[in-house]
């Protein structure tokens, strides 16, 4: 098998958030199969720059699958065809020479396109702001081993906490739902003793924020789990639903009056 391939890319180009976008066709030749998908884009971008054209903007940083910055939709699949792989770790050996690929940004109303393949995912930060934390002040904790945690719970919490916040779940979901992202954080903290005091308020506030950001609802297709580079399970979504329903049932205040009396320690 040759370790070079030629491809045709149809890449979404959009100058700015308010500009109309369109697909532009690029031919790339002699691409090594050992390259990552982003390195292939680097090569294309170097060529564009040499021709005086503007290179394709895309988000990326660690290029080792952990920071969650990268992510493009390749032929309809967020992060491309390989399972449990971020775009930066997707290698060109996953493609055949002569293939024509469509490369698009994450598409969701809550993720406006900033330029080309770069989207604004700050909505995910705002979901965390709503309650994705344990309200503990620096310097005040007790000894770490005074909080025993069942190993099974710790492992399940770690499974959920592995989320890298890339947004592929939103991109993959037919409804552009952020349920998997939100559920992963609610699950991580609900499974641990440290997360208990704020458990109810957290579930309600994070779900409300998720909805307020304009994400869609979950219709249980499972596309999110399938495209998640960390394999976060949709069981977490069931857990989020359970947490939310239990919290709403137990809440002494009407929903919406659930504003947190958090002074942030100030």
């Amino acid at each position, binding site marked *: 098998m040759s370790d070079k391939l030629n491809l045709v890319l149809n890449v979404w180009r959009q100058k700015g958030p308010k500009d109309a976008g369109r697909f532009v066709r690029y031919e790339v030749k002699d691409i*090594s199969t*050992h390259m990552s998908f982003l390195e292939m884009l*680097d*090569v294309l971008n*170097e060529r564009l*720059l*040499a021709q005086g054209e*503007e*290179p394709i903007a895309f988000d990326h*940083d*660690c*290029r*080792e*699958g*952990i*920071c*969650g*910055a990268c992510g493009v939709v390749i032929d309809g699949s967020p992060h491309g065809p390989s399972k449990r792989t971020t775009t930066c*770790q997707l*290698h060109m*050996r996953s493609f055949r020479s002569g293939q024509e690929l469509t490369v698009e940004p994450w598409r969701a109303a809550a993720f406006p396109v900033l330029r080309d393949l*770069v989207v604004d*995912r*700050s909505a*995910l*930060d705002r979901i*965390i*702001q*709503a309650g*994705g*934390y*344990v*309200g*503990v*002040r*620096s*310097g005040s*904790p*007790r*000894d*770490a*081993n005074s909080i025993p*945690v*069942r*190993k099974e719970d*710790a492992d399940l*919490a*770690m499974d959920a*906490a592995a989320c*890298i*916040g890339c947004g592929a779940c939103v991109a993959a979901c037919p409804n552009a739902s952020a349920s998997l992202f939100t559920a992963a954080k609610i699950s*991580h*903290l609900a499974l*641990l003793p*440290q*997360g208990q005091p704020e458990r109810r308020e957290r579930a309600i506030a994070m779900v409300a924020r998720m909805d307020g950001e304009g994400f869609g609802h979950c219709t249980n297709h499972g596309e999110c789990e399938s495209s998640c580079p960390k394999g976060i399970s949709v069981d977490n979504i069931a857990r989020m639903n359970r947490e939310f329903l239990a919290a709403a049932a137990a809440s002494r205040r009407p929903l919406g009056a659930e504003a947190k009396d*958090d002074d*942030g*320690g*100030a």
Partner: protein
Amino acid sequence: MTVLDARAPSGPIDARWDRRRFEMKLVNPANRRKFSIIVVGSGLAGGAAAATLGELGYDVRCFCYQDSPRRAHSIAAQGGINAAKNYQNDGDSVYRLFHDTVKGGDFRARESNVYRLAQLSVNIIDQCVAQGVPFAREYGGLLANRSFGGAQVSRTFYARGQTGQQLLLGAYQALERQVAAGTVKMYPRHEMMDVVVVGGRARGIVTRDLVTGAIEAHVADVVVLATGGYGNVFFLSTNAKGCNTTAIWRAHRRGALFANPCFTQIHPTCIPVAGDYQSKLTLMSESLRNDGRVWVPRGAEDCGADPAKIPEDRRDYYLERIYPSFGNLVPRDIASRRAKEMCDQGRGVGPEVAGVRRGVYLDFRDAIQRLGRQTVAERYGNLFEMYERITGEDPFDVPMRIYPATHYTMGGLWVNYDLESTIPGLFVGGEANFSDHGANRLGASALMQGLADGYFVLPATLGHYLGATKLEKLTAEHAEVRGAVEEVRARVDKLLSIGGKRSPDSFHRELGALIWDNCGMSRNAANLERALRRIPELRAEFWENLAVVGSGSELNQVLEKASRVADFMELGELMCRDALSRDESCGCHYREEHVTPEGEAKRDDAGFQHVAAWEWRGPDAEPVRHQEALEFELVKPVQRSYV
């Protein structure tokens, strides 16, 4: 040359931090919101500092170039975090962690700082567990530990292979909590372009909004830089692509001394370069060396052969041969240097890149035979998967290929005991400062230092600075502030207007190769002098032949790169200068002229038991080398030996 004073407290070492804290001025809780603090960087040090300062009630603004503070490169640390908890009852203590760290740094770190780091390590674990960081646990529900990087005690806490990620998410969540509370305002996708110094004090920064291109000044009472290391000067490193030196380099140009720039750590177990398109290197946990055996063919003629067909007597297990007692577990710098040596001898394996095979085998064949495939899969399965994803080869069938890569920089801005740089009001935390690691950092210590600085040291020392300093009101209209903004604008315009032919990446690659070859794992005066002649030429070409398209008033990733490469060009030169003037070997700094008979780094304590801190004198002027003498009251310097 002046001799720098770290202003560390004296007295019994275990009481110094307490004493310092007691001497500090405090800020009344009701007054704290009147003080504004800028934190640049949102990794372990910056994120933790911003969150903690917000909790305390200060008016905090935090800046990062990433789209979210959760993506700072602290996230990529795999192995773990050290803490002197002694949960395993195996003889660990604060003193032992301190001792190991000073020794590991080859006696080029400040004892007072290292002791404080070891003391705070204990609080860090408490803090992180309270935040819900899902550390690995035993069946009894208590925290699990492992031994890491050759330590004789099990003091490393970990969360699968994602410890950095989980610690960062803990800090990030604390930070977002403060954002929600209104005490911290977050500025993602902002690049810091300069420090604003007014009346000799750091009073703000100039940033470029990476989405709109807007160049703005932000004024404050105090500025914290926690912007990480400069390993990307090598172009190829295990750092994230965006990691850069701009923040600390701009501060350096404004008067902050840069300490020990040549102390850069090379990690031995990275996936080798596969081709000239390579954009970054991926590190794999050092733990692989516990069971994998490192070898190269005895003769160059076998280097292209199928490794399975190379018989035992034609393999050279060189680490086991040279270091019979430590074997494959020799320290990082030794393992790295020996791998380079083998490849320089023409005995490297893997694809030829630029005419040389740069890789050595890390073979699990014997481990699979001895332990069984399943045990090996349990121990290293995720690493094997990662390797296969990147290389397309299954380590169960074909030996892994590894090669060293840069992954941490011990050098950075010089800071005193309070983490304040030589610009008053400019504090530096985490990898960005010259840190507590001396000439070599031990495994699982970077996370510890970042969090110690962020959660505990900076919040205390900043409070003291604010409480003890009389600061004038300042607005963005001040002439010095506007001047700084204009300088940044002019620089951006200059980068955009060169209209040359070469991309920022092509300059960066050339610079990186130059530094790697001459100021990498192994250094000598002739090579360093050659690099010192070549870098200014390359820099001159950069400013004449750089190609940047697009405008400054939009998201322009080429412009971002160009601006960062421009600063790497200057930093690279300082690294070589520092390496040349440090005429000894120590830790990671291996000068071929200074070697023990066994081939190890040979220190010159009489001449170089000091921190070198460089002062910027202008783009074409020679920088001035200052010194901070190091005293070792408790840990007596000895020569390292692993033979």
